[in-house]
């Protein structure tokens, strides 16, 4: 359990200087992401209904569930890419509205997104990809942007690959480059859609380690959509689990709580058993 900040001054003295106090990951914090009674789907088909939860600052929050349970739908609603049938999503107290409108710019500047495929711009080099949000949302000089790009790419272990095109990289490298782009504007919240999908176990573990490192050093709040058990257990502080039939949250708590749940659906998921054999 981490200590709560003492007094109004959020720094503490250590040998050689001051460090910022870690924001506590407890439920009493003002939520950074608040999902309220969201119902969403495609056309006439409702995929999720009545989903509500809060994500505290500094937390690594996982959204779990089997394929088709609505994880990606919820993810899209949280970023404003899909309009919910009902309910709302607040990011840092501001509602996420239609993302194309200028009203959403303020909210979107606070988030960085790592898509499942990486979604790097294929016609741009890695450096240009990372520089893209900086060029479009800041007035920084090209020299500063260049330094920032080098810094961000080195943070994800891609120093020296600035001139490569996404097609010249492996799947893991593309994911890391996309992470560097997502972090370019130092967002308060990072969203990950299936970060380990299609990666080998070692690369996947390295990405998990990177996620933890970013969370520890920058205190970035993270929302991860995944069904990879090792990743969930390695990185998440808290998780919710969605269900395809119920269309809502069927369990929430720490990954440990969920792993020891008596609910057969949760049990099957955490023990990698077919749904009929969760006893």
């Amino acid at each position, binding site marked *: 359990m981490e200590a709560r900040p003492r007094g109004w001054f959020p720094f503490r003295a250590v040998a050689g200087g001051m460090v910022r106090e870690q924001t506590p990951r407890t439920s009493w914090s003002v939520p950074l992401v608040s999902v309220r009674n969201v119902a969403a789907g495609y056309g006439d088909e409702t995929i999720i209904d009545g989903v509500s939860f809060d994500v505290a600052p500094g937390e690594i929050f996982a959204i779990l569930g089997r394929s088709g349970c609505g994880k990606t739908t919820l993810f899209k609603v949280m*970023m*404003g*890419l899909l309009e919910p049938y009902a309910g709302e999503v607040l990011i840092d107290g501001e509602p996420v509205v239609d*993302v*194309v409108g200028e009203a*959403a*710019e303020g909210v*979107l*500047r606070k*988030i960085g*997104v790592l*898509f*499942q*495929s990486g*979604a*790097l*711009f*294929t016609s741009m080099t890695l450096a240009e990809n990372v520089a*893209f*949000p900086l060029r*479009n*949302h800041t007035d920084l000089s090209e020299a500063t942007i260049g330094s920032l790009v080098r810094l961000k790419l080195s943070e994800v272990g891609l120093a020296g690959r600035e001139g490569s095109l996404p097609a010249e990289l492996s799947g893991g490298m593309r994911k890391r480059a996309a992470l560097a782009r997502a972090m370019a504007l130092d967002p308060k919240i990072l969203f990950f859609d299936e970060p380990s999908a299609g990666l080998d176990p070692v690369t996947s573990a390295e990405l998990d380690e990177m996620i933890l490192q970013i969370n520890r050093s920058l205190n970035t709040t993270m929302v991860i959509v995944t069904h990879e058990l090792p990743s969930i257990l390695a990185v998440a502080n808290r998780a919710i689990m969605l269900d395809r039939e119920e269309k809502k949250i069927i369990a929430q708590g720490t990954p440990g709580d969920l792993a020891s749940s008596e609910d057969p659906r949760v049990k099957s998921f955490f023990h990698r058993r077919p749904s009929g054999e969760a006893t």
Partner: protein
Amino acid sequence: MPFLEWIRERLRGGSPPVSTEETATPSPAEDLISTFSVDVGHGSFDELHLNVTGSIHMANAEKARKELLAAIDAEPLKNVVLDLTGVDYFDSSGVAILLELRRECSRRGNLLNLVNVGDRVQGLMSLADLEGPSREAILEPRPLPNLLVQIGDGVLKVHATARDSVTFIGAVITGLWRDLQRPGRLKWDPVWKLIERSGSDAVPIVSLLSFLMGAILAYQSANQLRKFGATLFVADLVSISICLEMGPLLTALIVAGRSGASYAAHIGTMQVTEEIDALKVMAMDPVRYLVSPRVLALAVVTPFLTLFADMLGIIGGLAVAVLSLDVTSTQYINQVAKVLEVDDILKGLCKSLAFGIEIAIVGCLRGFQVRGGAESVGAATTSAVVTSIFVIVITDAVFAVLFHYFRLV
């Protein structure tokens, strides 16, 4: 025999060497087909006992199916016992046949019992959901709804497409208007790149085709004009038709085929690979980021290309006039200067400006409409070209009426 030697042998005209072993043994497929058989065994009075021997394989499955169904048909009132003792090979097609037999038996109120089922057959059957609901005719195309529903669906689809298109065009116009009000905020780098790709890279093909078009027009019309001894008027015909119609139209068709298709494919692929979503969550309006530069690029490039096409078309006419008609180059140029007015060229350029803007908007719109995968990108690309051509011709007709109405012709 090594491969090269075999090739040499073939080149010399010799027949390919065939080993004696190959001719002696039948092919594996023939072997499998021939080994299947069904015998009717001795059962009780209400039981049909069928002994299956050999293999049931994709190659002989149809034969096996027919024989087994015929055996059941012959005794429609009896329960069936299928003895699989003699089966030495069995694949998924065998399971499919067993499922069909079971369906046939239960339709007649009979039972199908399997006896002496081997491990492989059991393994295959355990994978199949034999207890699940039978879904017949899953490979049949879905039945069409009645005509009224189809008409209703069509109207709704047209309405949705029209609404999306109008919304898109509105977003493009407002985006462009804002960009033109504050040109400093527009990213000009992509515009220059697009101008280069859609403009200067298209100069060779536009030049070649318009030169040929001018030459063809001159050649075809010369045959008629020669009858009246008026071959010099080839210059009038070529220059006016090229500048007013053929130049802008030909250029627009080339631009639609090159740039319109490329815009649709590019944006469509970005849609598939989530790059458009990435732009949105980075608070970048994809319409302004992707469409405005393309519209601007084609608005600049198409009139310039048309100007090239006009010049090369007239030169094509000149080449034919000088080489195969009794017209000197001076006569031809003087005649062109006499009949061709700046107005004619401006009218053509005015049309080509509209064509360029339309091609860019249509290409981008089709790209944004991509849903799904590669097939959808292909369809969007085709649709971008076809729609562009349609829109170009309609616009051309509208311009013709407008020019006539305002007595500009």
